[in-house]
């Protein structure tokens, strides 16, 4: 067959937990930590959590299983994986467009993600030395109004990401996730214990979990579907790229359930770490960066041992960001190196440089380019976010579900899934064929209308 070109091998994860840790690291990111708890709290608490879990089951896990199947079947980067599996299924090689779209989305996301992660790194030092003389909103304004400062920390973060990815699967990503993920877990548990003892934990529990079905609207469903899809790093090729290194004897279905469960658990723990502190200091649980960079810093300034707890919190955020950023860079690096275009190290350097360069635009969007509009009335950062998160990711996720559900050869799927319960298999096929594409298509449609 035409596909049998010699592609460079990348090796495999050592041990079954490495894939789980890497995929969880990819899924758990900044948006997950500050996005999920806020959405849960303002959309009906426990009612939202229940709907979200349902969406994870019918959208998130089916697409995640599909991505892993595609990646592991071919053992290549998303572009070559899609081409190989499409040709093996006697379909057009044009399906590789999904891989290209994922890599492109990953590069765009990483370009602004790195700037925000750089702010987290900066805040480790700010929270350790903050005396409370400058208020936290002023502090945040000082940070984002300095282009040099933003670009410096963006550079530091990109260097860290490039160093890990360039070291390869076994010595780089594999080794780092085994350090970063337990560290993330330890820091998260420490923060939760601190919040249980010192924060207004009861109010946070009520905010997050007390079900209020009167707050549930069609918009809640859309938010839950979006959260379930975006929080698992789907549609950007990361899971497909990681799946390529998954050992053949590892069970795809149970692994996907474990990753989705860990992702949800960490998001809930993040809520239990953040909101008791926010409520204890009578701060508003407003969403997004304001919550962590303004409200949390304000709380750290007021609390006892704030100069110790604050840096730990921002280390936690930085670790979560780093474990996600390496998964955004990996698909592109894997493609260039397996095609023998460049060595792995050189690929990581070149793509990182390109991402870094693009990221300068996002860094400047906070200050001197804040009035510059690129797409509609969106500034540079928002435009990158618009192209990647609102167009490419839902499109990629929808096409993956359509390809695996309707066009991939059944024997290949069964071969990858191994021996699984028949009813579970039919349920997954049903979700991936009908439910997931429609739901992701609906998310895509609602982004515009």
């Amino acid at each position: 067959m035409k596909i049998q070109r010699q592609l460079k091998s990348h090796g495999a994860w050592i041990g079954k937990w490495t894939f789980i840790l890497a995929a969880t690291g990819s899924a758990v990111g900044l948006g997950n930590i500050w996005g999920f708890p806020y959405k849960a709290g303002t959309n009906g608490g426990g009612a939202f959590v229940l709907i979200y879990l349902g969406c994870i089951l019918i959208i998130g896990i089916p697409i995640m299983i599909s991505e892993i199947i595609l990646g592991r079947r071919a053992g290549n980067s998303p572009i070559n994986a899609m081409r190989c599996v499409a040709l093996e299924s006697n379909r057009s090689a044009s399906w590789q467009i999904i891989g290209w779209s994922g890599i492109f989305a990953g590069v765009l996301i990483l370009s602004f993600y790195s700037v925000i992660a750089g702010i987290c790194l900066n805040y480790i030092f700010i929270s350790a030395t903050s005396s409370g003389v400058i208020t936290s909103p002023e502090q945040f304004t000082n940070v984002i109004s300095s282009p040099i400062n933003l670009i410096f920390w963006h550079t530091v973060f990109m260097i860290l990401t490039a160093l890990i990815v360039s070291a390869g699967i076994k010595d780089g990503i594999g080794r780092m996730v085994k350090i970063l993920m337990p560290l993330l877990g330890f820091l998260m548990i420490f923060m939760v214990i601190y919040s249980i003892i010192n924060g207004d934990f009861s109010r946070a529990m009520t905010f997050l979990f007390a079900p209020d079905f009167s707050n549930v609207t069609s918009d809640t469903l859309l938010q839950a579907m979006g959260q379930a899809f975006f929080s698992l790093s789907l549609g950007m090729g990361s899971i497909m790229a990681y799946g390529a290194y998954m050992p053949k004897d590892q069970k795809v279905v149970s692994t996907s359930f474990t990753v989705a469960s860990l992702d949800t658990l960490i998001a809930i723990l993040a809520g239990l770490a953040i909101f008791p502190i926010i409520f204890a200091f009578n701060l508003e649980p407003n969403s997004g960066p304001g919550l962590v960079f303004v409200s949390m810093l304000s709380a750290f300034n007021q609390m006892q041992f704030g100069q110790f707890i604050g840096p730990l919190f921002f280390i936690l955020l930085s670790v979560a960001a780093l474990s996600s950023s390496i998964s955004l860079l990996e698909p592109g690096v894997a493609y260039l190196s397996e095609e023998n275009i460049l060595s792995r190290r050189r690929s990581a350097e070149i793509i990182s440089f390109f991402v870094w360069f693009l990221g300068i635009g996002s860094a400047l969007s906070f200050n001197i380019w804040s009035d510059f509009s690129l797409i509609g009335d969106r500034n540079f950062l928002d435009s990158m976010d618009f192209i990647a998160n609102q167009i490419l990711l839902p499109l990629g996720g929808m096409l993956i579900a359509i390809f695996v559900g309707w066009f991939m050869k059944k024997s290949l799927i069964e071969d990858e899934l191994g021996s699984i319960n028949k009813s579970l298999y039919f349920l997954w096929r049903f979700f991936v064929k009908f439910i997931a594409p429609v739901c992701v298509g609906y998310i895509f449609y609602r982004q515009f209308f």
Partner: protein
Amino acid sequence: MNISNFKSTYGYIGFLPFAFLSIAPWIAGSEISKVAIVFQLAYGSIILTFLGGMSWGWRDEQQNQKFNLSIGILYSLIGCLILFLTYFEIILIALLISVVSFQSFYYFEKSTVDFKFRDDDYKKFRKMLSLLVSISFLISSAYWINPYSNPLI
């Protein structure tokens, strides 16, 4: 279902009240919280007394069985002490004693000669169950310490 699975099923069912009574105060708050914690302590003291009594059923020919019996009685008495402290509303001390007692009873049982010959499933179950029960008491201790939730403040 073999006997180990049977024991672990009953064990985990027995854990459910601990889980429920340690989480309920955080969600329900108010007066219910104190009642839940008192019930948790009372239930815990009964279980601890039962665990202490288990040593009477261990093999008499086992090495150090006389010592084991004495330690078992000590745990039963600690169970009574927890009940006593709860009655006099010395709740935090009762909670902390419960945390230490459940965890240390596991280490005591693990140190016996016969435990080494138990099957792996039972060993894992005992370890996990002791840990979960201790965590449930820790969660309740945190509720009692927390200035925003302590029902006495």
